[in-house]
């Protein structure tokens, strides 16, 4: 009997939780705010689903009830992607080491 592909996805999911657990514990506490903004940005990879939804309309009706929600989701996720990565960039650029005084 073949294994349901769902089980493979579940395996990816569970293993990723463990990776997340160890990776996040190694994040230094002073970078917890950038951690939150960057996780925000990457969770917006949900835009992938939004793009599929947006392009699902046929050529006669680009906007149907389903694709409209897709288009809206594209904008929402895009706000997060651009906003999240840029604000993280801005924050990280501020973290500087003490200048070595000689």
């Amino acid at each position, binding site marked *: 009997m073949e294994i349901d592909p769902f089980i493979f996805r579940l395996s990816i999911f569970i293993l990723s939780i463990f990776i997340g657990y160890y990776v996040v514990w190694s994040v230094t506490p002073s970078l917890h705010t950038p951690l939150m903004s960057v996780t925000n940005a990457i969770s917006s990879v*949900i835009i992938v689903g939004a793009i599929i939804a947006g392009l699902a309309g046929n050529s006669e009706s680009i906007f149907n009830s389903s694709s409209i929600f897709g288009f809206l989701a594209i904008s929402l996720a895009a706000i997060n992607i651009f906003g999240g990565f840029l604000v993280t960039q801005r924050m990280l650029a501020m973290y500087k080491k003490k200048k070595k005084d000689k």
Partner: protein
Amino acid sequence: MISANLSAIFYLISGVLFILALRGLSSPETSRQGNFFGIMGMLIAITVTFLSIGNFSTGFIYVLIFLLIGGLIGALIAYKIPMTAMPELVAGFHSLVGLAAVFVAISAFLNPEAFNLGSNGNIKLGSLIEMSIGAAVGAITFSGSIIAFLKLQGIMSGSPITFKGQHLLNALILISIVVVICLLCLNQSSNLFWILLIVSFLIGFLLIIPIGGADMPVVISMLNSYSGWAAAGIGFTLENSALIITGALVGSSGAILSYIMCKGMNRSFFNVILGGFGATEQSSSSKNSEQRPVKSGNADDAAFLMKNASSVIIVPGYGMAVAQAQHALREMVDTLKKNDIKVSYAIHPVAGRMPGHMNVLLAEANVPYDEVFELEEINNDFANADVAFVIGANDVTNPVAKTDPQSPIYGMPILDVEKCKSVLFVKRSLSPGYAGIDNDLFYKENTLMLFADAKKMTEEITKNL
């Protein structure tokens, strides 16, 4: 158009890049590279999605338009936002992830063919369950984050809103969500799907209103976690490994941050979520009606004390963020350093309104990060320091957390400010902090209270140094 297998491999690559993005945050030196990995991962995921659909018709142009509109808004926000407003911004971003998850789920429910999930009214059972969970968690994230945003922004009062039977009502709603999902799986009625969304929005709202302002670090982390689980739920529906990996990463990241924040307050997660403080405070606040004498001073006194010190530890708190005093503070420290006084910063895990809030503000004011220390790293140094300069913090220094088992903050790790030779408190008034308890430190012999706005006082001190 590229094959499904090839695109799956690219999604896996972008998932790995996201892991590296988080890994980079283990030190400030590697963090910028990490952020770059994150951006690459996102670029790959989006490009591959376009290629795998291969439909570059008019619809494609609209996708680009909506993408650019969102991107422009996001970029504008990212450049305009002041660092002190970071907690609100993150709460706002969480709500958007939640809403995007809801929209994708709606769209998949209305047009399952586009996602290979079966046909309308006959969606594959597994997909339907995944979709419903993703939509429900997304909706909870959305409405919960909106409340958190309103509270942080001060539009809504930060004090907890509680009413009788609240926990019972919440429990009933949560059960009803499960029931609705089960019914939905049985008859696939779209009405049930809308009901599920409405009920989930409602519970997100109800879950956050009883939680007070200073518990926001826990709430924000928790909502961060929820936004991840919502993304993972949708990832299962879309059979997309990038989304599943990211969802799991973000979900566990938020959960760990919530745990760290709860530990910083010595409270259990459920205690915070059920709105612990606020209801139990009456007894302790009635006690301190008696007036005890405090020594209050002015900028001149404070400057004198610090000038004669050889080491100073600064303890910033939410009050510093409110007064936007971080730049003035750094100028004061620069002057101190010119006089050969050793200065370091001590940060309590729950200082501010979100994890790492104080560190970002100090970094913004050009404070080098190797002068900023966490509680465990610096707590022993207070005994050897001459002056502790507490600016806008209160509860995190209260020795009652060690001495009085009756106190609501008993057991909370505190910064041992009391061990310093002298303590300076910059505070607007004698009012107790968020936990509603009096701080004995105010009345100690070696404490000098500086009643003023944090920014003005710091500037005054600098002038007098």
